[in-house]
């Protein structure tokens, strides 16, 4: 057992024993060695279930919404991306800071689950796609911290430059090629809404895609309705996406959802200045304010 896991369990035990929180949310081993799903620990004697390994993909902050009306505090482990998710939810007033104990855990980047399954336990498994470009390996906000921060700043520095080459590759296609690409992607969308439900930027109480009575979207599953969903979802998380990549990871149909999110991130940075969601809780949202000198393309 690594020192970090020991420390994790130690902190969790202490929190539960002292009654500082009623539940600690972390990760545990799942069905297979390459799965580390969320774990909810209520009792000190259960802390041994907690793990920290290369597959702790799930962003736990979204679960805090389930505990809004619970009495007492909730403790959760946060990676860099999870902490940005936490900040996002805080900014959307969906959670209260003082009802949460954050245990920060620096993250070197997790491994690709599909590749792990394919290559086997002893192989050299590549980093998950979402982690390759990570710029926030260290938690931004925490009450406890596990491990050392220093080493990871180097990791952060290494990936400081943003890589939008995948977005640019699509931008260079002709309109018809672009449409064909995206139409194919969204033809197979099941509208299972896993991408939405896992997303920390999706903080609505009732999503418009669940309001079929209003008629925003039809029940039918077809490329047109699915693209309405895709574009609207992308616009709805514009300026809010923290790039945790969970949407893309959970998609059963392997739709490259982050390509849409990254396009918006790229344009927001280009048009309205540098902005990283979930970093500054008190800052203004890109679509929540304007600048009189915004670029002028409408004449």
């Amino acid at each position, binding site marked *: 057992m690594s020192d970090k896991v020991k420390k994790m369990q130690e902190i969790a035990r202490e929190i539960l024993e002292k009654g500082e929180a009623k539940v600690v949310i972390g990760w545990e081993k799942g069905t297979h060695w390459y799965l580390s799903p969320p774990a909810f620990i209520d009792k000190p004697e259960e802390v041994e279930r907690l793990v920290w390994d290369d597959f702790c993909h799930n962003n736990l902050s979204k679960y805090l919404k389930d505990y809004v*009306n619970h009495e007492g505090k909730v403790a959760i482990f946060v990676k860099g991306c999870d902490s940005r998710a936490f900040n996002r939810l805080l900014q959307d007033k969906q959670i209260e800071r003082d009802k949460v104990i954050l245990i920060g855990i620096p993250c070197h980047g997790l491994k690709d689950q599909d590749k792990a399954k394919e290559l086997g336990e002893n192989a050299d498994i590549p980093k998950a796609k979402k982690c390759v470009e990570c710029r926030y390996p260290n938690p931004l906000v925490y009450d406890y911290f596990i491990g050392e921060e220093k080493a990871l700043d180097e990791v952060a520095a290494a990936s400081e430059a943003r890589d939008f080459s995948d977005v640019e590759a699509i931008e260079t296609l002709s309109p018809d090629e672009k449409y064909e690409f995206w139409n194919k992607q969204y033809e197979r969308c099941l509208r299972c809404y896993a991408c939405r439900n896992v997303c920390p930027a999706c903080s609505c*109480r*009732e999503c*418009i895609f669940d309001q079929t009575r209003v008629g*925003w979207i039809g029940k039918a599953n077809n490329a047109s309705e699915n693209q309405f969903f895709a574009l609207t979802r992308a616009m709805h998380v514009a300026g809010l996406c923290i790039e945790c990549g969970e949407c893309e990871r959970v998609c059963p149909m392997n739709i490259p959802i982050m390509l849409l999110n990254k396009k918006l991130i790229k344009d927001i940075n280009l048009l309205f200045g540098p902005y990283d969601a979930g970093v500054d809780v008190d800052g203004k949202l890109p679509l929540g304010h304007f600048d009189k000198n915004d670029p002028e393309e409408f004449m």
Partner: protein
Amino acid sequence: MKRVGVFICHCGSNIAGAVDCEKVAENAKSFPGVAFSTDYKYMCSEPGQELIKKAIKDHKLDRIVVASCSPRMHEPTFRRCLESGGLNAYLLEMANIREHCSWVHPDDKEKATWKATELVRMAVAKVLKNEPLQRSTIPITKRALVIGGGIAGIQAALDIANAGHIVDIVEKEPSIGGKMAQIDKTFPTLDCSACILTPKMVEAANHPNINLITYSEIENVEGYVGNFDVTIRKKARSVDMTLCTGCGTCMQKCPTKVPSEFEMLMTDRRAIYTPFPQAIPNKPVIDRKNCRYFTTGKCRVCEKICPTKAVDYTQEDELVTQRYGAIVVATGFDLFDHSVYGEYGYGKYKDVITGLHFERLINASGPTMGKIKRPSDGKVPKDVVFIKCVGSRDEAKGKAYCSKTCCMYTAKHATLVREKIKDSNVYVFYMDVRTPGKGYDEFYTRTTDQFGAKYIRGRVSKIYEKGDKLIVRGEDTLLGRPVEVEADMVVLATAMVAQPDAAKLAQMVGFSYDQDNFYTEAHPKLAPVETHTAGVFLAGACQGPKDIPESVAQASAAAAKACGLLSKEEMPTEPIVSCVNEAICAGCGMCVPVCPYKALDLKVIQERAHGKTITRKVATVNSGLCQGCGACTVACRSAALNLKHFTNEQILAEVDALCL
């Protein structure tokens, strides 16, 4: 089943000339929901309206589409028609088949008819989703608040009070009067400022409809037009206003001397003081920061000496909340801090003073009893330099705008120097001389021709001290050569800037301000005294640099607007406002910053969920403030916000209908 009636207007030949109106009426019969459809020569005429009313009755119509001219023209007409026909006015939709169709497509009847049909189809689709809306009224509280007791505030208050309404003036200083009270004479007539101001101050103080609330500040503003709930902080005066007779004994005996702000720190006042002898109310306050008793716990001289036992050290700030129907903001201006200019000595040279210092120096009740004496050694200056545009028209260090009044008051100062000091020389450095205004240019001409002030076009590049002289170096750009003047005193015409707390007040009341923190009028030409917040009006230099006559004129204009509002018992409200579906609202607050009217806020509600009572935040729309723009509905991702009469459902129905 909804029953829509469709009425196609020929508008004489205006529409019928290009559109086959009968055909459009015929086509409309097959649209879902349409129970009756017809056409007529002039729908807006008496018989046309009768036709609609009769059809409502005969065909049991519950929604109406009129296809005619622009709704910007006749929507009110047909709304009234529906009302008198027994339908709610908002069950009307109009299809604009004149301005948007017949007039612009006069030569292709087939396509114009096709387009008209589709415009009617859109209107029918929308009207099927219209809901009856009720215009409500909001009561008007017949009381006005004037924030700021300078000349603008006093004038506005007097006008409103004379119209018969109660007015409260809130002034942060212990006395009303403002900047005008500090000024000696006024251009271009050279009347004594105090002589024309003090009667107004007295009139305001004695007016049965005016309450002066001095030494007080606005703490909070809630509500909306007709019903602003304003919390006012009455700062502790430490003097009981009801007992004090204003005899002034305390001010003579107070042992603590403090530089007087009113006299631009050129002489002292006491810790218990009125800012100036003609102050209104003429009852002192204790400056607790400097009072010996409050700083050391010992003294109490004023308490002992006061014949009416009015001094009360235990007084505390008092918060009072009052409801007002209208607010006039007249908070005035401040002066630019010229210490940013190194070339003028960073504000360190004693004899480099501002125009307002100079006003006090020439004022008979000022620190020098009206004798022009320079601050450093009290000598009468012989060579006086005036520098204009200090902070104005200087984007680099100051403000981009022209402060408007400086040309005239500098001319006035130059005249007064020449008048009072016979052998004096006056030099005025200027960029331009701008003197539009009645009698203004004539005054300026007298200053140069009759009083012999020397105007030098150019900027001063440096001032430095040499002995007891100030060397002023600059360039005469007209002659293209350097100039150097040995001056005894330099007077800077510093820019007029917004009050330091201007933005804070604007945010509190909820109207906008520009990049210089001057308040923004609703329209620069056609609504120059209104703000974007209904019921809040602007007067004086808080909106931008102004001289006295302009401030007074704007104050009267603002007062007229306020009186117009207060003369009504109640005002109708447009029911086209946003509304919140609390069941859906997540309380994320993304709608709040996009509302230009501060109509959105979050509130806490209680509800039962999973068998227990929980509280959560939801958005709430103040329908008194909401103007119905709908910006919030787009900011709301879950569509918990909707705009009445332009609902998501209605617009989607229109889009669907036109795409058929």
